[in-house]
Every structure is written in structure tokens, then in C-alpha cells.
């Protein structure tokens, strides 16, 4: 085992040197996967050649390892479970591929759903708080549509794309109603959206039943994709991946023994921090304390006093930027000088504005590398700035990638929801996004690289595993079910 770990660490360092060199070189402009990609042509032959009662013989993705989980981080790692999920791609076996294209359409409608309108927050009872993320997300998606319309819209018919925009932060699960309206009334061909974990789960259940593909660019809840439904694609690195890099940095690089946790008492905080908790326990460094706070409470003295009593070497926060900033300021005021780590939502202007100089030295997990040199990223940033008068941030960039991917799938597949799903589900190669390459796992999750963002000299700088030499535990090359040598848990 140790030998495996050493080899893996060495490979990471070597890869890091190569990658660091590569980051200085401008990547050539490649905005989408070529329409004449041979694997794509082959896929189209198969999905276009079936009737309602035949499932095309497509080569399903099979992953050797779920979510690139190191062996020492696997749940119940000492035994072989009865069954492992998400290693084999789910097929769509319904009749949808035989649906004929509609004869007359004026526009090709694509749905967008996100938190864009201010409302009452279910979490706080006060004002809703996710519009700061949802509006850039909507703008990123809109920019993608406008650019494709400038290229001729839906190329087969020379008609424009139209974005059907819905709000998802209404109360009482309103996102479900909105998806249903988009599916049945607006007749959209695919949907991009959702940030909040609860709304996202509601939305994908509806998408599954109504059979319309849902591309998610903003919900990092690990369980979002762990539902085994074949109508969902995610194009952002999730909190599992972000927790892995953060925990590896804290425990394997910095050698911490005891970290304290504080997180929002909502789905984002609860599920985001869970992988940090699991990882700590599995690495034999159980967290002494995990404090949950109510979003919007403002005063964190109770939580911080208890946190302080456990004498943690570092504190990790999982929640929104405002609370993350307030907690950091109050920590420093209380004389808590230990390093502060956080989730990606704290990499924001709002966080920096509230924390001021306290932000210096903060390290956050982050789903992509905005400092990467890439011609299409530069092009996107310029276009976004010109169109919306603001800098493109992470939600805008991921939504731009997700909507581009969806539009590309419509161009390839035509106006058929099942075939649009197929094209996304069987991408012939990683999607060349402005946020970096997006390789999809067997459960159609983005398993591309994630990063650490460090606040240094009043700016965020982004580091890969390789940049910081962060080792990873040994990742077994085959699934546990097929792996020999383990004791079986099967009764």
C-alpha cells in the first residue's frame, strides 16, 4: 500500500512539473467537439436507426473507480460491499428516440432555471440570498445562446434559439412546477440550471419523469448526481472532489491532526461538509467539532466559542460568502489566529469586501482554474464584459459551458429530447469548456481537475494538486467488486 502511495505521489509531482509548464502556453481555440467526429457519427447512426421498441447498442461508460476516490477514503474500505453503484452508465431504454421532429417550430426553446428573483428565503425567513450566483449564471447561459444565434441559430433549420427563463428559489418546491411548465407547456428541448441542492433534486425528478435532459452548472451537492437517473449531466466539479483536494492538502500535505468545522445549517452546508468529515475520519483524524449555524444569524460567538475550546489547528467553513466572511472576522476578533479554509462560494468579491485584510491567507477549494491561459476563456471573458458590463465569475463561466454543450447537442442530435440526451451522455471526448476540459464519469458527472484558491497579496491565485505537490491516496484501478483479495461483506 505504501509503495502505491509513493508511486502515486511521485507521479503527481512529475505531472505537476509538466502541467506547470503547460499552463504557460496558450491553449489553441477549440470551442466545441467537431460535428464530424467519427465516434459522434457512429453514435448518430445507432440512435437514428432504432424504433420505439429497440434500445440502441451503445457502449456504456464503465469507470474503474467511483469519483477517483482514494482507497483509504472509500466507505467501509476494509470489506468488499455487496454492490457498488455509479460505475456503469445508466442507459435510457424508453421509446423517445422514435419521436419524430416537429414539423413547424419558430424557435428552438431551451430552459434556464436558477435563483434570479429576490424572494423570501426558506432557510432564513428573510430575504433570499442566492441571486448573486443565479444572475451571473443566467447571463452566462444567455451569452452562449446569443453567440449561437449570431452563428445562424439552429443550423438545420436556420431558426434562433430562445431561452425560457424561470426562477427556482420560490417556496414550497416551486422549482418542480417550473420544470413541468417548461417540459409540457414551453416544450423546451433541454434545461440548464439550479444551484440550491434541494431545488436541484426536485428539478431532476421532474426532468426524469418528463424525459427532458437537465444540465447542471451550479449545484455542487455530491448527492445530486448520485441518483442513478440517466437524464442529468453536471459540468462543475462537486463538493466531493473539492473536499478531497482540501482534505488531502490539510492532512497529507500540511499534516494537520485536528481541524474544526463550521457550516451552514442548510443542504449546501450539510452535504458539502460531509465529505470533509468522512475523509477526516477515514484518515484517522476525526474532527473534534462540527458547528452548524443558521443562515443570516450574524452573530457566531456561540459557535466560535465552542470551536475555540477544541483548540483546532485550522478551521474549515462550508456555507455562503457572507457568513464565511463574518465568521472569519469574528474569529480574528476573538483571537482565533489559526488558518481558515473554506468552500468555493467564499471565493468572491463579497467575501473579500467584508473581510478586508483578514482575507489574506485564506484557502478555498475551487472547481476550476480561472488563471489558466486559454484563448476561448479570454474570448468568453471579453464577450461577457462587453455584453453585461461585469467580469465573468464562476457561475457565469460554468453556465456558459453548460449551455454551449446543450446547444451543441441539439445541433448534433436534432429536435428530439432522447437523442439530445444520448449525445450528451456519450460525448466522444471531454467537452472543451472555458472552465477547462470537462470529462464525464459513468454517472455523467464532471470529474475534471479541481483546485485550491489562495488569497495572496490581495488577489486569488489558483493551484492544482500538481502545483502544490498535494499527494493523493492510492486510487485502485478496478472496482472493489471485481478486486481480489478483500474480505467480502456479502452475507
Amino acid at each position, binding site marked *: 500500500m505504501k509503495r502505491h502511495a509513493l508511486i502515486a505521489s511521485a507521479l503527481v509531482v512529475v505531472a505537476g512539473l509538466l502541467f506547470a509548464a503547460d499552463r504557460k502556453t496558450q491553449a489553441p481555440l477549440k470551442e466545441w467537439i467537431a460535428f464530424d467526429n467519427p465516434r459522434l457519427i457512429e453514435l448518430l447512426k445507432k440512435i437514428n436507426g432504432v*424504433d*420505439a*421498441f*429497440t434500445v440502441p447498442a451503445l457502449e456504456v461508460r464503465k469507470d474503474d473507480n*467511483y*469519483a477517483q476516490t482514494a482507497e483509504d477514503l472509500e*466507505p*467501509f474500505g476494509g*470489506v468488499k*460491499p*455487496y*454492490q*457498488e*453503484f*455509479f460505475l456503469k452508465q*445508466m*442507459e*435510457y*431504454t*424508453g*421509446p*423517445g428516440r422514435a419521436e419524430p421532429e416537429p414539423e413547424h417550430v419558430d424557435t428552438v426553446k431551451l430552459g434556464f432555471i436558477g435563483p434570479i428573483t429576490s424572494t423570501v428565503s426558506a432557510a432564513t425567513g428573510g430575504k433570499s440570498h442566492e441571486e448573486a450566483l443565479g444572475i451571473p449564471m443566467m447571463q452566462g447561459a444567455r451569452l452562449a445562446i446569443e453567440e449561437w444565434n449570431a452563428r445562424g441559430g439552429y443550423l438545420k433549420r436556420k431558426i434562433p434559439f430562445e431561452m425560457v427563463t424561470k426562477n427556482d428559489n420560490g417556496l*414550497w*418546491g416551486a422549482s*418542480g*412546477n417550473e420544470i*413541468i*411548465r417548461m417540459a*409540457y407547456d414551453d416544450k423546451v428541448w433541454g434545461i440548464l440550471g439550479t444551484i440550491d441542492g*434541494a431545488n436541484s*433534486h*426536485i428539478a431532476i*425528478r*421532474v426532468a426524469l*419523469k*418528463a*424525459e427532458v435532459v437537465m444540465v447542471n452548472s451550479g449545484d455542487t451537492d*455530491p*448527492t445530486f448526481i*448520485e*441518483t*442513478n*437517473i440517466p437524464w442529468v449531466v453536471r459540468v462543475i466539479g462537486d463538493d466531493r472532489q473539492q473536499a478531497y483536494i482540501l482534505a488531502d492538502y490539510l492532512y497529507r500535505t500540511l499534516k494537520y491532526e485536528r481541524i474544526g468545522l463550521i457550516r451552514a445549517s442548510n443542504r449546501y452546508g450539510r452535504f458539502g461538509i460531509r465529505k470533509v468529515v468522512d475523509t477526516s475520519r477515514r484518515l484517522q483524524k476525526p474532527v473534534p467539532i462540527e458547528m452548524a449555524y443558521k443562515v443570516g444569524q450574524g452573530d457566531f460567538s456561540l459557535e466560535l466559542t465552542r470551536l475555540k475550546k477544541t483548540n483546532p489547528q485550522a478551521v474549515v467553513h462550508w456555507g455562503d460568502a457572507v457568513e464565511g466572511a463574518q465568521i472569519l472576522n469574528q474569529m480574528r476578533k476573538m483571537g482565533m489566529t489559526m488558518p481558515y479554509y473554506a468552500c468555493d462560494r467564499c471565493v468572491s468579491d463579497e467575501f473579500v469586501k467584508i473581510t478586508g485584510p483578514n482575507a489574506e491567507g485564506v484557502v478555498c477549494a475551487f472547481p476550476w482554474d480561472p488563471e489558466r491561459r486559454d484563448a476561448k476563456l479570454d474570448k468568453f471573458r471579453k464577450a461577457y464584459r462587453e455584453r453585461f458590463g461585469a467580469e465573468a465569475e464562476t457561475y457565469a463561466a460554468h453556465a456558459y459551458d453548460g449551455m454551449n454543450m446543450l446547444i451543441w447537442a441539439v445541433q448534433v442530435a436534432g429536435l428530439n429530447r432522447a437523442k439530445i440526451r444520448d449525445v450528451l451522455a456519450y460525448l466522444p471526448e471531454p467537452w472543451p469548456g472555458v472552465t477547462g476540459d470537462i470529462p464525464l464519469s459513468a454517472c455523467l458527472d464532471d470529474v475534471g481537475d479541481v483546485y485550491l484558491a489562495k488569497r495572496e497579496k490581495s488577489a486569488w491565485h489558483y493551484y492544482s494538486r500538481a502545483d502544490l505537490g498535494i499527494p493523493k491516496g492510492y486510487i485502485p484501478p478496478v472496482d472493489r467488486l471485481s478486486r481480489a483479495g478483500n474480505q467480502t*461483506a*456479502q*452475507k
Partner: protein
Amino acid sequence: MRILRRIGLMAIVGARHAVPPPILVLAAGVSASAAPPAPPGAPHASPLQLPYVYTKWRQFTTENGLPSDHVFAVKVNGNDVWVGTDDGLALIDKQQGKVAKVWKEKDGLPFRAVDGIDVDPNTGDVWIALFGGGLARLSGGRFDHWNQLNSGLVNDVVYGVAVQGDNVWAATTAGCSRLNFKTHQWTIFNEKNSPMEEIWNYAVTYSKQANKVFLAVWGSGILEYDLEKAARGEPAWNEYLDPDREMEIDLYRDDGINHVIDTGVTNVDGVMWTSSYFGGSRYDGRHWRGFSDIEGGMPSLFHNNVKGRSADEAWYCSDKGAGAIVNMEPETWVVYTREGNNGKAVVKQRTRPDAPTLDTIEVVETGINVPHSFIINADVDGNDVWLATAHGVGWGIGDGYYPRLKERAPLGAAPAQPAAATAR
């Protein structure tokens, strides 16, 4: 190739059972009495201990009157078969064997997508779960409508409905609502007053035998509401969660429900059957038994619903056919699939108690059985079964139906290969 395989299989069957090469015969022609249950520890049944196989089927689609082929729900009440589709409600007259009436939004149906149906056994009123449109009741030819703005219904996305005495329960995407239609009082069950870690209800059923209401909840497992305890003012909820608490594995097969993302639950003869997108489970009040596609009986991991017929038989609505488990010991499944313009029933059995997988012991070419292999909902109707699929409704006519296993002549071919080679 297919012909060669058939011939090969027939020869094997003929040699093994000393019967003429099998031909397709109707199950109704089979005469033998049902075998008594095997005593504990007894060896498994011989290959001639076979389950009933539905060989007589009828299909209903838009071609013979359904408002849409995408069927979400089917519910039988005597001669009436209620069908919910993504674009309307239909009533099939079973005796006449035809679609008798259709309601769409223009006919007063409050919303186009009908996701679940239950019938009040006392009044014959039809309660309708509307997928995005709330809850409706068809009574005396009139639709009454409740939604989240005009009533105590917690959300308009209603996945399932169940009538329990004077109450109707609605499983919604944001909790469960209960309406007492005598007192017009609403009760909402969610994370505040029930053990719902998540509130995304998927299915609700009522068991008169158990006097309990069961909820299948996406992310919160199976919840059981004991009506007797509730009447006594005692805590009435009981929850069943996946003991390993992990999304990416099922640690032990038989330790509880196999996953917390549950899609269906049914309780009959004291046995609870559950379905999920990760297999299914059976619970007899003391022992759990998990089912998965990896052992070759269950046709898929992905199940939209489950309907229990007895303690021994349940119909799993999978994306790869209707999987009926018809006997527990030896574990025996019959899987019905449509294949092009044909259909088949595959009988699988654990032929040795210690066998890790089930063997295919019979393949019956039935002609078209289920109208599509993507099964969404099921109901049991005496000897018959009704299956809602993504492309119509299938009616399995159970002439001569018998439960569990009995000795009978084979209806089809018995492949030589064990299930491991033929399982998906």
C-alpha cells in the same frame, strides 16, 4: 443465430425432461395443482417446479383510444381500469376490452399529466395525482381540484395518491399532504413533524391489512405511518433507512432497504416490498431481503415502482421489463420484455441454495406482452395484471393463474447456459 440457439435449447429441454420439443402453448392449457411450500432446508424444486407465465396479453395505446402512449399510472377497480398518461386520463372497460372514455384538459381534467390514481372503495370516487397540477377528484362526472394555492396541499407536483378511510394522502415533491374529505381538514407531513430527512415524496400506499400508510421518499427511504398508534396519540412514524448510509455502495444485501432513494412501496400479507433506482427489498417484519440485477433475477437496478401481490409475489416496474418475483424459496423470477414485434417471458431460478446467481430455466415466446419494456406502474387485478409503460398499457390475462410454483410442462425453451451468461 437465434434460430440455431432455439433449436439447441429445445433439444436440451427435450433430453432433460423427456418431453417432445416444446411448443408455445397457452398457460390456460396447463393442468396441475399448486405445489405446497418447500419445508425449510428442503432441496430446491426440480426444474419442473415452474411458475405461472402470462402468455395471453392485450395492449392499449393511442391506436385504440388512449390519449397518450406515455402512461404513468394504472389502477383497477372492478370492471374499470383507470389510466393516467402525460396528456390525459382514460377509462378502459375491461369487459368490453376497449377504452371507454378519455378526459383531457379541455374536458375538465385540471391538468394534463396524471401521475397516480386511487379509487375510494366506498364511493367509487377517483382520486388523481396531477404531475404539476395538484390533486383532483372525479366524482359523479365532475372534477374537483385542490392545489397549493387554494388548499392545504403542500405542492402541486403530486407523484402518488392513496385513499385511506375518509382520508386521501398525496405524495408531493415537498412533503405529504393528507385531506380528510369529511371534515375538509388538511395535515401536512414534512421534516418538521415526521422523520423525513428529505421531503421529496415519491409514492404513497395504504394497506388495510396492516392498517398503515407507507411512503417511499427520494432521499429518506421508506416511512411507515401506523394508524392505530396515531389514533391512540402515540408516535406513529417508523422509518426504514439504508443501514450503510452511503450513496455509492450497498454494503450488505439483506441488512435493510438497499438505498434511500426509494420510488415505490407496497405492503401485502404482512410483507413490505420496496423499489428504488438501486434495486429493491422485501421485509417480512423480521428479515430483510435485497434484490439487485447482479444476481440475474431482477432485470435491472432502475425501478419506477413495485406492486405486491402477496407475500411471495411482487411486480417490479423496471426500465428493462416487468420483473415479477413469484417465489422466494427457491427465488424465482419471470421477466416480461417486448422485443421488436415480439415478446418473451424469461423464467429465472436459483437452482441451488448456494448459487450466487439465478439460472434461466425457461424462455417463453409470448408474442407481444408488455407494449414496451420501460415499465412505469403496475396493478394486480385478481388473476390479471395491468402494466403502465412508456408506450401504452399491457393487460396480462391470467387464465389458470396459480401462485408460486407447481409442476407443469415447459411452455418454452430451457437454455443450457446459466444465468450468469445471460444476465444483463
